C-alpha cells in the first residue's frame, strides 16, 4: 500500500460536500413488516409506561399479537403481489433486499414470534399469588433473588409485562437480519435482535441464579462475537471501499478494481478480504450455534426461561441462517472456493459433535440444545450446496425445524414439580403412562428432530441432503446420515423412557395449561405432520423463493 502512503494520493473528503444532497428514497410498502413490528414495540413501551399494572398484561397481549398478525399480513401481501419473484428489489438506499428468501424467512419469523407470544402468555402454570395469576417471568427482575424485594413483588402478584415489547424488538431485528444487504445493516440488525434476547434470558421467575448466569454468559460471548463481526466488516470495507454486498461482489469479481488507484491498491491485498470474510462468517456462525462457536448454547438454553428458549432457538436460527446465506451467496460468491472447504469442515464437526455430546446429557433442555447444534450442522450442509436447490432446501428446513423446536419447548414448560419445571431426564420416566397425550405430542417432535418419515424433519433433511449431494458434497451427506443415526438413538431413548418405564412415586405432575400453551403445542404438531405428509406446496413455495436479488 505504498502508493496510498504518500500524502498527494490520499483523496480529499471535502470535495464530496460540493455534490448536492439528495433526500433518501424509502420504499415504505416493501419495508412495512419491519416498520409495523418496531412501531408496535415502541407502542408497547408506551403502554408499559402509562397503563396501570393490572391491565398491562391484557393490553400488551392484544397489541403484540395484532402487531405480529398485521406484519404477517403485510408479508403475505408483498409475496402475493410478486415481490418475492418478479419484483425483487433492493430497497432503503441499498440497505435491505426484499426478495424470495427475505419474505419467506420474515413470514416464518413472524409466525414463530406469534406462537411464542402464546407460550409467553401462559398464566396457569405458576401457583396463583394472592391477587393475580402470574406467568413464568420474574415478578421484579431487579430484586435480589431470595431477598425482601422479591418477596414483596411476588406477594403483590407483579409480572414482567415488558417481555412483550422486548420480544417485538427482537422480532424486528430478526426481520431485518436476513434482509440486510450491506454490512452496516447486518451489524445493526444483529445488535437489535441480540440485546433484547440477552435481557429476556435473565427474566426467569424460578431458578433465577441460573437464569442470570445464562444471561451473563450469552451477553459476554455474544458481544465478543459481534465485535469480531464488526472488525471483519471493517476489514472488508478496507478491501472493497464499500459496505454494500453488490459492491463487494463486484470488487471481488474484479469488475470495479481498476476504477481508482486506491481500490487497485487495497483490492490487490487478499489478506484483508480473507481475514475480514472469515471474521464476519465467524460472527454469524456464533449466532447459528455451529461448532467451534457453540459453547454458549447449552448453558443459555438451560438457564433461560423455557418460553424464551423456545423463541430464541427457533427464531434466531432462522434469522442467522438467512443472513449467512445472503452474505455467502451475494457478497462472497466470488470467494466460493475459499469458503466452501471451511464450511465443509464446520458442518462435519458440528453434526458429529452435536450428536455425540447430546448422548451424554441428562437434562432435557441441554439435550435439545445439543440437538439444535447438530441441526445447525445439517443446515450448513444445505448452505454448501448450490444456489437454488441449496437455498430453498435450507428455507424449507428452517420453517419445519422452527415449529418443531417451539412445540418441544412448549411441552417442557408443562412438566413440573414443586421447584418449577422438572427438566432432569430421570423425572420424565413414565410420563407416557401419566399423561399420554402430552407424551405423544413430545414424541412427534422427537421423531421430527430425528427425521423419521411422515414428519417435517424427514422432508427437511431429505431436501437438504439431496441438495448437498447434487452440489457434489456426497461425503458430507454420508457424515450427515451417520450423525442422524447417532442422534436418533437419544431421541428414541427419551421416548422409551417416557413410555416403557414405570412412573416414579415422587415424579413431576403435568400442569393443565390454558388455551394458550395448548394451542401452541397443537400448532407445532399440526405443522410438523402437515409438512411431513403434504410437503409439496411448501416445497414449491421454498423453491420459488430460493433466488436472491443482487
Amino acid at each position, binding site marked *: *500500500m505504498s502508493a*496510498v*502512503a504518500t500524502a498527494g494520493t*490520499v*483523496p*480529499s*473528503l471535502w470535495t*464530496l460536500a460540493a455534490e448536492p444532497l439528495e433526500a433518501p428514497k424509502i420504499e415504505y410498502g416493501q419495508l412495512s413488516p419491519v416498520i409495523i413490528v418496531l412501531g408496535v414495540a415502541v407502542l408497547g413501551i408506551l403502554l408499559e409506561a402509562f397503563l396501570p399494572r393490572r391491565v398491562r398484561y391484557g393490553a400488551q397481549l392484544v397489541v403484540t399479537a395484532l402487531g405480529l398478525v398485521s406484519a404477517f399480513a403485510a408479508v403475505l401481501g408483498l409475496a402475493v403481489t410478486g415481490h418475492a419473484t418478479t419484483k425483487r428489489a433492493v430497497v432503503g438506499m441499498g440497505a435491505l433486499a426484499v426478495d424470495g428468501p427475505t419474505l419467506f424467512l420474515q413470514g416464518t419469523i413472524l409466525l414463530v414470534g406469534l406462537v411464542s407470544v402464546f407460550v409467553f402468555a401462559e398464566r396457569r402454570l405458576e401457583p396463583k399469588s394472592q391477587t393475580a395469576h402470574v406467568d413464568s417471568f420474574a415478578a421484579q*427482575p*431487579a430484586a*435480589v*433473588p431470595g431477598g425482601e424485594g422479591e418477596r414483596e413483588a411476588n406477594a403483590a402478584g407483579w409480572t414482567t409485562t415488558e417481555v412483550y415489547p422486548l420480544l417485538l424488538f427482537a422480532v424486528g431485528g430478526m426481520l431485518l437480519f436476513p434482509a440486510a444487504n450491506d*454490512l*452496516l445493516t447486518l*451489524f*445493526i440488525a444483529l*445488535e437489535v435482535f441480540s*440485546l433484547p434476547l*440477552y*435481557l429476556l434470558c*435473565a427474566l426467569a421467575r424460578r431458578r*433465577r*441464579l*441460573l437464569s*442470570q*448466569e*445464562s*444471561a*451473563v*454468559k450469552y*451477553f*459476554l460471548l455474544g*458481544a*465478543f462475537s459481534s*465485535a*469480531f463481526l*464488526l*472488525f471483519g*466488516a*471493517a*476489514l472488508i*470495507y*478496507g478491501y472493497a*471501499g*464499500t*459496505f454494500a454486498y453488490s459492491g463487494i461482489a463486484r470488487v471481488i469479481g474484479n469488475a470495479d478494481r481498476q476504477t481508482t488507484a*486506491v*481500490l487497485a491498491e*487495497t483490492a490487490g491485498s487478499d489478506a484483508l478480504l480473507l481475514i475480514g470474510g472469515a471474521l464476519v462468517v465467524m460472527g454469524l456462525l456464533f449466532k447459528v450455534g455451529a461448532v467451534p462457536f457453540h459453547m454458549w448454547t*447449552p*448453558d443459555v438454553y*438451560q*438457564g433461560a426461561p423455557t418460553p424464551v428458549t423456545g423463541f430464541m432457538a427457533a427464531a434466531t436460527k432462522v434469522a442467522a441462517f438467512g443472513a449467512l446465506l445472503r452474505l455467502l451467496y451475494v457478497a462472497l460468491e466470488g470467494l466460493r472456493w475459499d469458503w466452501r472447504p471451511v464450511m465443509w469442515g464446520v458442518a462435519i464437526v458440528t453434526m458429529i459433535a452435536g450428536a455425540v455430546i447430546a448422548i451424554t446429557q441428562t437434562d432435557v433442555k441441554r439435550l435439545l440444545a445439543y440437538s439444535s447444534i447438530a441441526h445447525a450442522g445439517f443446515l450448513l450442509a444445505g448452505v454448501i450446496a448450490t444456489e437454488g436447490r441449496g437455498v430453498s432446501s435450507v428455507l424449507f428446513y428452517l420453517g419445519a425445524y422452527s415449529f418443531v423446536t417451539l412445540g418441544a419447548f412448549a411441552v417442557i414448560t408443562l412438566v413440573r414439580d414443586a421447584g418449577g419445571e422438572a427438566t432432569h431426564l430421570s423425572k420424565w420416566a413414565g410420563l407416557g403412562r401419566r399423561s399420554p397425550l402430552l407424551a405423544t405430542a413430545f414424541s412427534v417432535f422427537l421423531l421430527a428432530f430425528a427425521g423419521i418419515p411422515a414428519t417435517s424433519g424427514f422432508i427437511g433433511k431429505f431436501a437438504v441432503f439431496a441438495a448437498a449431494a447434487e452440489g457434489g458434497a456426497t461425503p458430507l451427506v454420508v457424515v450427515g446420515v451417520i450423525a442422524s443415526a447417532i442422534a436418533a438413538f437419544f431421541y428414541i431413548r427419551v421416548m422409551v423412557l417416557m413410555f416403557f418405564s414405570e412412573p416414579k412415586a415422587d415424579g413431576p405432575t403435568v400442569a393443565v395449561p390454558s388455551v394458550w400453551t395448548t394451542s401452541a403445542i397443537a400448532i407445532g404438531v399440526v405443522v410438523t405432520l402437515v409438512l411431513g405428509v403434504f410437503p409439496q406446496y411448501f416445497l414449491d413455495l421454498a423453491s420459488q423463493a430460493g433466488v436472491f436479488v443482487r
Partner: protein
Amino acid sequence: MSPVNYVYLAALLFTIGAAGVLIRRNAIVVFMCIELMLNAANLTLIAFSRIHGNLDGQIMAFFVMVVAAAEVVVGLAIIVMMYRSRHSASVDDASLMKL
C-alpha cells in the same frame, strides 16, 4: 504519516482486547475489553474511510458508537444484577451449570 499505520494500530488494539476477554476474570474488565475491540474496529473504519476517500466508514463508526452505548446499558444491567445476587463479578464463579 501514512493512514495505513492506523490500521496496524487498530489491529494491535483489537488483539489486546480479544486477549483480555480470554484472560481476565472480572466481568466488568471483560466487558471493557470488548469495548476496546469495538473501538479498534472504529479506528479501522475511520482509517479506511480516509484511505478510500468516502464517508461510509465514518458513518458506520457513528452507528457503532450508538450500538456500543446500547450494549453498555444492557450489559451493565446484567452484570450488576449478577453482582447483587452473588456478591462477585467473577466470570469463574458463574458456573452453576457446568457439567
